[in-house]
């Protein structure tokens, strides 16, 4: 593993209007780590997390595999099993169809850095995952 693509995940629990789990991603998200992020989200959901805030404020880079992770997390938070990202063959029909104008209600993104925000913009993910600029706004939006 090269020195620049390190990544760490830190979990916090916050009580807003509802209990919110904050998953902070530190470093870079690429093909080396995206499966770990998905696994962590799966664990959180299994443990009872129903409102997830992805804090990307300390994520300096996100490759296309990061989009796969976000997509899978959105499905997980909707109680659906995401596809196998590595092999892509599953019979279930999980697709993250947004609610309330296209956005996934219980999974949001917090304060992405410009390169990551750009990737979300270009990929169209901002139309499905709400991006909040600050923590207070994010928590209030759940």
């Amino acid at each position, binding site marked *: 593993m*090269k*020195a*620049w*693509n390190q990544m760490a995940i830190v979990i916090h629990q916050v009580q807003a209007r509802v209990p919110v789990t904050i998953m902070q991603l530190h470093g870079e998200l*690429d*093909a080396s780590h995206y499966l770990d992020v998905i696994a962590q989200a799966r664990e959180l959901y299994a443990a009872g997390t129903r409102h997830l805030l992805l804090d990307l404020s300390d994520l300096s*880079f996100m*490759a*296309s*595999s990061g*989009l*796969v992770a976000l*997509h899978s997390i959105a499905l997980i938070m909707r109680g659906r099993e*995401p*596809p*196998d*990202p*590595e*092999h*892509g*063959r*599953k*019979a279930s*029909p999980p*697709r*993250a*169809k*947004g609610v309330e104008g296209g956005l996934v209600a219980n999974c949001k993104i917090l304060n992405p850095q410009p*390169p990551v925000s750009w990737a979300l913009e*270009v*990929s*169209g*993910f901002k*139309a*499905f995952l709400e991006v909040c600029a600050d923590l207070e706004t994010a928590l209030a939006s759940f």
Partner: protein
Amino acid sequence: MAPQNVPPLEVPLHRLVKRQEAAALLAEFGTLLPGGHLALIGADGRVYAGSAEWKRAELQRWQPQAGEGQSTCAGGVVFQPVFVQSRYVGALVARAEGDASPGPLVERTLRCLQTSLTLLLHQALETRDVVSETLARYREINLLYRIGETIGHCLEAEEIPRLVLGEVHRIIEADVGAVIMLAVPVTGTSEGVRSIAASFGADETVCVLHEASRAAMERACDTGQPIIVDLTCFPQPVDTGLGTVLCAPIKTPEHTLGALVLGRFREQPEFTAGDGKLVMALAHQAAISLETARLHQEEVQQQRLAEELEIGRTIQLSLLPASCPVVSGWEFAATYRPARQVGGDLYDFIQLPTDVLIRDEPGLLGMVIADVTGKGIPAALFMAFSRTVIRSEAMNGRSPATIMQRTNRLIVQDMRYRLFLSAFYAALDTRSGHLTYANGGHNWPLWYQADGNATRWLAAPGCVLGAFEEVEPEERAVAIGPGDVLVFYTDGVTEARNPEGGLFGEERLKATVEAHADASAQELQEAILAAVEEFTDGTSLSDDLTLFVVKRQA
């Protein structure tokens, strides 16, 4: 006949010293007792060497006293006990000629003889110990050789515990045994999920052994040495009669893999240090074999992966255009640089249906660039599927936005592929330069405008294809003027890294294009590739790099 509370020697006298040697020694010393009778009797009271005239009844009257080297005299007979390693071996007995009481000469003669005989016996014991040790080492080496032949060639990790335990059971007596493996090898300690990989003995006893050996296994794995535990010293939830447990760790220098555990019932002899040493040797061999099997499995998997990637690459390359379009007034250049793993990049040129054909050249040209998430054969197959869908939609005369929408819908409906696709589709009217385009979540192409010497991005809101049920890409249009350049690329270009981890980025791409805007499409493409190569400075590509340049001639 042996003194009380003095344990007899483990090996009978006749196994230590040949009768001829003892008789010769007695004969020589016997010359010092003219007319006397000298004999050596064993601990069992039998005459071992010397005169046969001694009667058992005479000999049985004598009881040796405690204390080595103390001779006693009874009825005119001198008894000189012989001790070796503090154990009673036998006695030298002597009687003087006639009925004369034995004098100091007899006693001194016996003591000298006893000293010589003791020395002889010590040497014999040492030789016996060396032979025994050598034999034990030979058996050990033979066992290890056989183990190496049996287990060393086994590359099935699931079989090795059974083979090892079978060999252990052949060599060392035990009432129950098991090979306990950790689910995931851990560094240093024995923490982790344990499972029984092989066992012998009654099931309930094996279970008890498994639980009872937990602490012993931890200690053995920590120290790297075998450990023998007396279970009778600890209360057991279920009494299965187990007495001692022998536990030897199975570990490599880096990881603890598990442990080999044996148990004996209370009435059986305890395990010895020698047993522990032998079991440890087998555990060590098991660790080597398991590590070899693991490495072999990894190699096989890597080989399969490499074959899969090669197949994927073959599929991918077969779907890329063999050449660029040839259109008057336009230049095209395209390149694809694969990374170590197949990444699923796609570009395509599609001659679109039009009422007007200009010298058999495409009047309306569809251009696609796309990037599939994922690697290997699944990504390659998905790319092939997506290319076909886009081509089909384009050939049916759909607009760029409709092509993106319908492609997304078909991918989602098909549901076999769970991968994403970012794609950018543009339709170019080669007569007018009118460009209509729509974006499916792909990197925005660069557009250099000769008139104004400005560079801008072909921005268009859209979403990656295959991730969401419905997408609504915006369709946009621009006019490509003479001297203008379009650069389509995948993120393999902008996310190429230098040794410090920095990204090539959109701004460097833009600067390179602006610096070579007057060059031909081919030259500009080469300049971009050269800039990326210079930036990466030998760092290998982590993703496929795809790039094509379209230039309207001035």
